[in-house]
């Protein structure tokens, strides 16, 4: 068993003249993991999170970072907080400066970086969250989703190893939530450890690879989301509802309509499972649709636009803020902006071509996900990378005969 990056060991805490907030909680956060603390409001999630970067000190028990117990002197705390970044639920309490630029610079400036390094860190962080060009704006002119991204940029600018998000999508509409969750995916696929607290079971079910279920200051269960969330009695104790798809799956299972196995996490998997249940196997035929994959960091807009304009692809989706920015800049209309991979697989299965635009570490992720699907379902799906300008296949109809 490896040493976890961050560990809470039998933590207890009681607020002044309040009820017990935490009663002996132990949690292990592995490096590079995507963990969700799930529970209703008042379960102690935020209290626990505040301890992980030393904002609160446990009454008893130990927090360990990288195997070492936290020290609570000023120097150590600063050091810890640089490495464990905390994004508050409400961006309005986190954004302190009068402009976006000054706010993102807050952390780096206080870390004592030289002005040039500060400027670079600000530029990088704003680029990452897709807010370049917003530097001079006052925060009160931003939308809720934009504020959230400014808050995240302010933490990213300090280059933390662990990112802690308290209710990352609270009060955001679905599109903004989706953007934030994608950002979290990008961060995780870039090697960072990401921890969120949430009462949104659907979100945790889709996103996390490890779930800690909390209620009344205790841990009720921990494990992979499909296991934890299948125990309805446990969820009811935590005053939560099972994810809709999982609920349906378990109900069908109870009536023996569907075969036992790993519960499906997405509409795509579910569809396959039901088809298999009805036909005994998934219908043959790959549909023949192709999935093009474009790395927006390496490809020019012209090539991608050509693909779309000449009808080579029927649907276009973008994953990640930078990819969406790219599409926006290059005036490529997007059909999908969330659940992109699954949507494109579904289209490929019915014979239609699609294009996924993404960036950086997410390219790998797309290959992996489609590969996994092919392996599980037994249907071969090919991913065609969109190549560099000189290598792109001739998109013009005229050239096809040659």
């Amino acid at each position, binding site marked *: 068993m490896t040493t976890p990056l961050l560990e809470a060991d039998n933590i207890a805490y009681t607020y002044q003249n309040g009820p017990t907030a935490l009663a002996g909680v132990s949690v292990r956060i592995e490096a590079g993991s995507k963990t969700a603390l799930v529970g209703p409001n008042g379960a102690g999630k935020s209290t626990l999170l*505040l301890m992980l970067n030393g904002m609160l000190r446990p009454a008893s028990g130990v927090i360990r970072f990288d195997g070492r117990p936290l020290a609570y002197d000023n120097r150590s705390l600063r050091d810890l907080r640089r490495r464990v970044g905390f994004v*508050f639920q409400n961006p309005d*309490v986190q954004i*302190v*400066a009068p402009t976006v*630029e000054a706010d993102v*610079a807050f*952390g780096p400036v206080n*870390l004592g970086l030289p002005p040039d390094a500060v400027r670079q860190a600000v530029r990088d962080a704003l680029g990452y969250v897709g807010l370049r060009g917003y530097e001079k704006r006052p925060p*009160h002119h931003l939308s809720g989703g934009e504020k959230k991204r400014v808050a995240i940029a302010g933490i990213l600018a300090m280059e933390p190893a662990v990112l802690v998000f308290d209710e990352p999508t609270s009060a955001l509409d679905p599109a903004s939530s989706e953007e934030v969750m994608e950002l979290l995916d990008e961060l995780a696929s870039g090697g960072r450890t990401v921890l969120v607290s949430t009462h949104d079971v659907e979100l945790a079910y889709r996103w996390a690879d490890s779930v800690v279920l909390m209620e009344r200051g205790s841990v009720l269960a921990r494990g992979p989301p499909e296991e934890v969330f299948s125990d309805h009695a446990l969820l009811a104790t935590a005053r939560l509802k099972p994810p809709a798809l999982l609920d349906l799956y378990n109900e069908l299972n109870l009536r023996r309509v569907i075969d036992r196995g790993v519960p499906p996490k997405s509409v795509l998997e579910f569809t396959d499972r039901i088809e298999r249940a009805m036909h005994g196997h998934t219908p043959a035929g790959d549909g023949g649709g192709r999935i093009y994959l474009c790395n927006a960091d390496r490809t020019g807009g012209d090539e991608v636009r050509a693909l779309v304009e000449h009808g080579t692809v029927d649907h276009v989706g973008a994953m990640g803020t930078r990819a969406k920015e790219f599409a926006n800049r290059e005036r490529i209309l997007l059909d999908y902006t969330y659940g992109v991979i699954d949507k494109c697989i579904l289209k490929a299965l019915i014979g239609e071509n699609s294009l996924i635009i993404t960036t950086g570490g997410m390219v790998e992720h797309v290959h992996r996900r489609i590969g996994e699907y092919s392996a599980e379902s037994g249907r071969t799906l090919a991913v065609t990378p969109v190549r560099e300008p000189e290598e792109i296949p001739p998109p013009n109809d005229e050239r096809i005969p040659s």
Partner: protein
Amino acid sequence: MYEVLEDFAQTNNLRETSPALKLFIGTASILLCVSSHAPFAPLLVAASMSTAVLALAKIPARFYAKLLLVPVSFAAMSIVVVLFITGGGAVLLEVPDLPLAITAGGANLALLLLARVFGGMCSLYFIALTTPMTEIFDILRKLRVPAVLIDLAMLTYRFIFILIEEAGQIYRSQVMRLGYGRFRESVRSFGMLGGALFIRTWESGEALVLAMDARCYDGRLGIAGETRQISAPALAGGLLYLSAVFAVSLSTGGLVIV
């Protein structure tokens, strides 16, 4: 209305002009106004600044007209007092049965004051409507204003907008529940608004301390902004305008500095 003043500063047509130049022209205009001994120069300032605000910055005329009404009540009351207590010169008007009279001296001073206030307020509007506070912070920093003062001002700025939003919502929710009906209820409603806002403020303050700590707060705020180049024609135009006002001021009653 306050939100809108700063909103225009963020979006107006002179947004990209060097803030240092705008601040310089605005304050120099104010100084020329209060130092002029005849109403002509201040009136010229009022006219030029209004033109700049309307024609160059493209602030809607209706909004600007409403702004000009803000200082009227104070100006009217205090200028009336000056009008009656200042003597000298011919008596222009006497109030029957009361020891009140308007003299030429009083009328002249009242006119001068009116012109100065008018010119001064127009210059203030020029600054307020074209130069975002966020850029004024940068200039103050360069002028070596103590950092702690600027930091405090920056944090206050940020929270003013958060609290204004909340105060507005609390006010609205009270109106929806029929608050502010009669006078007594108005005072009661207002007291509740103040109290509720105080609680919200207190909670915001605690949250702010926590948030700043979480981001390694070490007593520093903000970065040095990049200095924007002052364009030569703009500078020339500004100087030309200021020297014209200066000349008018000198030739009409002179300039008094202390």
